[in-house]
């Protein structure tokens, strides 16, 4: 009995000390981690497609509940008007989900820019949907309602050669963001208006 109690206390003490230590480290790093996540995951893509805006889109962001999911929207101010929003959606790629940020002009419902954020596509093959600017550039200026497809599927988007599945994934993500946009547009427009220019 005493032996068992000793074992119990040993493991208990170890776990308690470990838990306490981790709580301290976690709270010390939490704020920095949140900032880094936005800066490195979505930051470069958002800044790239909202190029030329007069505010910092990473700081003027808001959240809208979409079903059970919290979605973040980033507002870009152009010519003094907060009329462009960027947000992330996902499409099925070759190696998993491809994250795509799409920026849409609220007044014209046209795409301002598209950029790939996270992807697990084959390096040097599928990952070119991210690194080849010509591919994402094709979406620019097109109405968001368009049912985007690669040319092989009867659409009007040139797939990156050798990476049809990944290109299809990006198209799927843009179509998905069109659906999100249609669903949430009134809420987005209302929240974006209150952004300081």
């Amino acid at each position, binding site marked *: 009995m005493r032996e068992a109690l000793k074992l119990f206390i040993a*493991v208990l003490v170890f776990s308690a000390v470990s838990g306490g230590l981790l709580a301290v480290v*976690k709270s010390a790093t939490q704020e920095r981690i949140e900032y880094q996540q936005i800066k490195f995951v979505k930051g470069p893509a958002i800044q790239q497609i909202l190029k030329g805006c007069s505010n910092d889109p990473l700081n003027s962001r808001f959240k809208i509940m979409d079903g059970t999911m919290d979605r973040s929207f980033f507002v870009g101010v152009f010519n003094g008007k907060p009329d462009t929003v960027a947000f992330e959606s996902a499409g099925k790629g070759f190696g998993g989900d491809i994250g795509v940020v799409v920026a849409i002009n609220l007044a014209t419902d046209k795409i301002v820019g598209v950029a790939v954020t996270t992807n697990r596509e084959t390096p040097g093959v599928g990952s070119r949907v991210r690194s080849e600017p010509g591919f994402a550039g094709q979406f620019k200026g097109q109405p968001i309602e368009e049912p985007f497809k690669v040319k092989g599927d009867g659409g009007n988007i040139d797939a990156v050669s050798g990476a049809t599945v990944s290109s299809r994934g990006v198209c799927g993500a843009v179509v998905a963001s069109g659906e999100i946009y249609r669903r949430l547009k009134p809420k987005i427009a209302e929240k974006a208006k209150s952004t300081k220019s």
Partner: protein
Amino acid sequence: MAKKTVFQEFTKGLWSEVPPYRLVLGLCPTLAMTKGVDNGFGMGIAVTFVLVCSNVLISALRKVIPKNVRISCFIVVVATFVIIVELVMQAFTYPLFLQMGIFIPLIVVNCIPLGRAEAFAYKNGIVASFADGLGMGLGYTISLTILAIIREILGNNTFWNHQVFSSVFQPFAFMVTAPGAFVCLGLMLCLMNMLGKK
């Protein structure tokens, strides 16, 4: 076996018992994290930190840890240091953390820290355990870095994300895929066995 000096405990991890090539331990990150030199090196440093800390702590507490529950205690110690590494990496080297992803938490179930705790730190003094952990960790880091150098240069024509040869050299993309990792590791093991043959 004669008692080894602290220096010998340190150097055995670098050559005669180098983890991935001689003990053939910790292969999962060895295969997955050697696509680029930055990944391989970062993984090695993370493992080294965990290994040194857990070895020293377990050695210091070896008289307190009851024999019957030693594995649970080892795992708690190793897991604590791994999560610390994970949080610190997220806070300061986020891009590297993104590339290494799941392989950081997987250090917990990596055989090396637990293996060294059971096989060495629980039976030896603090100084010897420190030397053992540091040697094993550095041996692991060097092994991963060498494999990563070969794979990154041949497969991607880059070293630490900088181009090596002129663009005329067509990278051998097979090397950065998973099968390429197996082939490369197999050749390294073969080489190490040839060198080790007396």
